[in-house]
């Protein structure tokens, strides 16, 4: 399988991505994650103002067959959520890095980006996952 993995994003081992925008970060699910889940039919978003913690559940993504947690890639405070996903969760399948973004946080500790993978590292990680 060829999964779309793009430049400019940092990825987690749980297949989330984060894109830095100044002191903020936009968060979503990778193409690999949306493909593994299958057709997404429901998204449970955090409330604006929620404190999220790196590695902890921060949103719930459900496909027809499965329930998956979206783990926060970084610590921070939710400042915006993608409410369009409530009516059209399938956008995560069709455009995981664009219109399928999930929420935006105010970053607490920028140095945490150093713990995430860039495109090259994540590509390698996905290949290893596929071989398991």
């Amino acid at each position, binding site marked *: 399988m060829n999964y779309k993995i793009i430049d400019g994003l940092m990825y987690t081992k749980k297949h989330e991505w984060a894109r830095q925008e100044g002191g903020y970060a936009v968060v979503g699910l990778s193409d690999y994650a949306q493909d593994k889940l*299958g*057709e997404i*039919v*429901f998204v*449970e978003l955090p409330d604006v103002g929620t404190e999220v913690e790196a590695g902890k559940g921060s949103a*719930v993504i459900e496909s*027809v*067959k499965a329930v998956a947690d979206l783990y926060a890639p970084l610590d921070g405070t939710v400042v915006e959520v993608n409410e369009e996903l*409530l*009516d059209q969760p399938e956008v995560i399948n069709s455009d995981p890095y664009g219109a399928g973004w999930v929420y935006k946080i105010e970053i607490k500790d920028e140095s945490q980006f150093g713990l995430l993978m860039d495109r090259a590292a994540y590509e390698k990680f996905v290949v290893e996952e596929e071989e398991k």
Partner: protein
Amino acid sequence: MSEGKKTPFYEKHVALEGKIVDYSGWLLPVQYAKGLVEEVHDTRRRATIFDVSHMGEVSVKGSDAEAFLQKILVNDISGLEDNAIIYSPVCYPDGGVVDDILAYRINSESFFLVVNAANTDKDYAWFRENVFGDVKLQNLSPEYAQIALQGPNSEAILQGLTDVALARIKNYHFLPKVFLAGINCIVSRTGYTGEDGFEVYCGNAGASALWDALWEAGQKYELNPAGLGARDVLRLEAAMPLYGHELSSELTPLQAGLDRFVALDKEISFNGKEALKKQKADGLSRKLFGLEMLERGVPREGYPVKAGEREIGWVSSGSYSPTLDKFIAMAFLDPEIISPSTEVSIMIRNRSYRARITKLPFYRRKK
């Protein structure tokens, strides 16, 4: 855990980009490249092919075969004709369910039973425990492959492979020894999707060639493969029970709403008769209902159902329904509380989502 078993169609699934999972010890596709939602639509609108070789098959022969089945089945097979099929729960004496099965009558001394994959060994042991007189049991499961061809185009596709007029096989009837592309098959007008269709049984040796022939014949009718995920959603839309969800040793067929398959007036003292009669007389504390979500949320097995603050039961199966574009569930609820206008809520991760009672089945095909 031991390595899952491969059916004779394993390589076909891989070639069709099936996502393989271990289901009851069998390596089977949960979905193919098009995805579950499209596979459901394909089944309702055109036709799909499913590998259901994991299902178990048991042969029952002998002069006491019918009497034996009358004892272990809660449905009444006394009126069953040759080449006809009956659906029946199999119960323990306490009314709990061993399995739900199809019984094919070849003749008065020969029957073919189709049982659930996960229950095959348990069922076979149970049958042996209950056997009497002149009854010969044989577990044929390891020797048989099974394909389900489901959807409105099924008859046209299958007809391309045989001179036997398939229109003559009515719903819940079958013909043994139908040669499809030269392979000896049992052809049965049955299924687990709520659509017209066939289930075809053949020996493992001819299975791969049969799949290829069906696939080839299906191309001009837009035949597509469908996996276990679509099969589960299709059967839920049609409100067909699934063992482990709507049926179990802790639940009775009456609770599952299968009254018309429970022949309480059958004279013979069948397994479960007294317990089921008593339950019918005493009334049920839980009964199966259909639910439709009034707000977006996916009801799933095990989620609690409430009326106001009071917990009144649990979801046994639930999903997004591609056919209805709604979120639906079957749930065991306290029938004392429920009226058609009762509003209930389903607890999803400690949050309450509104739902309403709806008639079963959720989907019924137009004849």
